[in-house]
């Protein structure tokens, strides 16, 4: 029996760095890394040189300096004596407000339009299709500017509401005024007992949660379903409503009224905020409608046929079979569109709304001359939001995956 011969061992050659699979990966990465680092250092070096020429340094101290400018729409207390950092925070909250309200309106609209788009009614389906295509194919900036122009040029000035025969009247029983300076709503005024109402409302919600749990258990044990929807609505509304009247209406409305050339009191929503939010909402709703439609259509017809042949009624087919499957398809791109809406809110500067880009990336940047630092912070903010939302999408995908072999 002869001993097995071993393959001859090769001696190391430099060309093996690239051609041998053992070393190739490493070599390529090392080369890429070196090139990347070289480019990176070149950029940094240039920046340092340029900054030196302009006598600037890199520091974030400006955040603690006095801002010196006013922001006319804000959610937290702020004056021109507050710091730049505070101004940035006001801007961030403004951005988040637009994003939040915009997303809600966009979702409601998008759901409505998307479901109607699937209607068998030809006119309705075509109308919804026109809505979707119309909004999707025109740039969002144009919509923002257009809606703003509409709100400022098309609406009456406050003084048009004056006099015995005014040119313009308020809506909803003299409570809402749409003017070219903004829209005025009644503001809620909380009196003494208002906090009891809040407590009652909170308790109603807790009660509804327990009721739903109870109803589910009943269904499991006896098979009978209870009308959970209507009972929940009643439980949420009636106790709080009854308490409201019993306590002598502790929440009242402060109506805006015309004084001089302007409206006073009430909530004042400026046109820049309205234009930005409404335009973003309508624009994004068109994309959401398509996502909803695609999601529902993606559930194969056979699913609803099988459910129907088992005797399930259409509303149960939708809630038990179609929606759970459709939602899995709809939610990730839906959240992606929320992110897009948030990013698009940075166009606020076009209508003068002070979002984070208007404050931090706008006036603060111009006044302090800290372009590099401001842009870094600004981009950092958007990156943080986007990473948060992406990780949420990933979490959703992982938890609700339909199990496949």
């Amino acid at each position, binding site marked *: 029996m002869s001993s097995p011969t071993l393959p001859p061992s090769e001696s190391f050659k430099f060309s093996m760095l690239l051609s041998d699979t053992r070393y190739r990966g490493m070599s390529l990465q090392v080369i890429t890394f070196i090139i990347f680092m070289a480019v990176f250092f070149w950029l940094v070096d240039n*920046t340092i040189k340029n*900054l030196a020429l302009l006598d600037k340094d890199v520091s974030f101290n400006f955040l603690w300096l006095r801002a010196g400018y006013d922001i006319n729409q804000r959610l937290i207390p702020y004056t021109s004596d507050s710091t730049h950092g505070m101004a940035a925070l006001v801007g961030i909250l403004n951005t988040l407000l637009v994003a939040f309200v915009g997303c809600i309106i966009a979702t409601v609209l998008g759901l409505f339009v998307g479901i109607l788009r699937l209607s068998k009614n030809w006119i309705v389906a075509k109308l919804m299709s026109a809505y979707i295509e119309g909004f999707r194919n025109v740039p969002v900036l144009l919509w923002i*500017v257009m809606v703003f122009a509409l709100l400022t040029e098309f609406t009456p000035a406050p003084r048009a509401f004056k006099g015995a025969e005014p040119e313009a009247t308020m809506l909803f029983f003299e409570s809402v005024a749409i003017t070219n300076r903004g829209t005025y709503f009644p503001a809620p005024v909380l009196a003494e007992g208002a906090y009891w109402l809040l407590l009652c409302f909170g308790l109603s919600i807790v009660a509804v949660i327990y009721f739903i749990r109870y109803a589910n258990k009943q269904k499991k044990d006896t098979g009978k379903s209870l009308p959970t929807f209507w009972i929940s609505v009643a439980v949420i509304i009636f106790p709080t409503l009854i308490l409201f009247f019993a306590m002598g209406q502790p929440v009242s409305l402060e109506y805006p009224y015309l004084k001089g050339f302007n409206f006073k009191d009430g909530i004042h929503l400026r046109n820049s905020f309205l234009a930005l939010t409404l335009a973003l909402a309508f624009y994004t709703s068109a994309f959401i409608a398509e996502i909803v439609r695609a999601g529902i259509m993606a559930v194969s017809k056979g699913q609803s046929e099988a459910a129907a042949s088992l005797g399930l009624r259409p509303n149960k087919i939708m809630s038990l079979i179609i929606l759970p499957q459709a939602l899995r398809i709809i939610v990730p791109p839906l959240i992606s569109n929320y992110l897009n809406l948030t990013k698009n809110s940075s166009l606020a500067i076009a209508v003068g709304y002070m979002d984070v880009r208007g404050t931090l990336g706008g006036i603060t940047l111009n006044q302090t001359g800290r372009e590099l630092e401001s842009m870094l912070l600004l981009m950092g903010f958007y990156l943080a939001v986007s990473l948060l939302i992406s990780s949420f999408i990933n979490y959703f995908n992982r938890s609700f995956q339909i199990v496949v072999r």
Partner: protein
Amino acid sequence: MMTKIAFVRKKEIPPSAPPITEVGLIGWLRQNLFSSWLNSILTVLSVYFIVIILWDFIPWAYGGHWNTKSLRECLDLDPDVACFSVLTARWKQLLFGLYPAEEYWRPTLTFIFLLLAIVPILFPKFFRFFWFSIIYPGLAVWLLWGGSFWSISIVYIGLTLGALFFLTLIRRYLKNYMIAAILAFLFTAVFFLFISNPLVGLLNVILPISLPFVESLKMGGFTLSLIVGVTGIVASFPIGILLALGRQSNLPVIKMICVGFIEFIRGVPLITLLFVASVLLNYFLPPGTNFDIVLRVVIMVTLFSAAYMAEVIRGGLAGLPLGQHEASASLGLTYWQSQRLIIMPQALKISIPGIVNTFIGLFKDTTLVSIISLRDPVGLASTIRADQKWNGIYWELYVAIGLMFFIFCWGMSQYSQYLERKLKTDK
């Protein structure tokens, strides 16, 4: 007790017409518009809604003025109809920006050539004209910006010489692609650094061909939107492919760099990147360099679009039938060969609808340059509205601009849907 069940049909039953409520106009109406109470109500409401809108819109548009000199004149004549005169007066500006009027033939020609250059790419039948698509970028730059013909073509000449050098090395002298590539690269670098300028000067003397120079700031309107959009999408294509491949790579360093880049770009709004282009880019380049603003914007838009393109191509790569990689590897192809010959063509074919959608999005995003004071149509609208003659006009102007974008984008999306349908049936 079984009854006889044997049965044979003797006479054929011919097809007959369906009952009248099923087909034709009545059938269609019944099924589509009036199939239930809810549907009938919806139909009536929708028709009412449409009629109201048209009732107001048609007289307003139809009776519009086209030839007045200002808004005031329009309003004096008849305030209830549209004042389209703003379009008559300013349409050239909306299309070309501040481009010199006597040179309008140049952007127009560029646009026509663009359509011709796209044809070989979109319709494989005409692939033999692909050479035109390759020379088109140089031709377009020369037509739009002007200057000497040779300064542009020297780029093509240099690259072609470099490619020829590479091929000669491979064919006759060297076996190793890597070394030949490095040498060819050096040769091209030397050419551009030392030989190109004198050569251009020489050619300019022998055969001067040039067009009057037009600076970037004069470009505006839809021409600017197209320049930024088309250049962005075309240039981002190869970068996007590289990024998509890098993202999929097994090598951690490359993967991290690609993922980092893509996630960074997709996480920030385009407006911040444009702002970087207009303000910060100068910091990152050696002191003293001063780039053309349009070029800077195009660079940022390209990088932006490349990240989204990479994601689309990644989707296309994921949609490939499994086993393509293994099949090509087992045939002995190298990584780059299998990418070039097998993987990429299929992945790109699947990605085309996504690519067209990215382009539509990019084209709409070109309006953002108005915020950094470039004169795209939206920016021009503000300028026109600020003009005394047209102060206060908005519907007519915005509707016209919106309509132009709509036609372009909707057309592209219809094309993309057509492609998707064709691809589905192609299998």
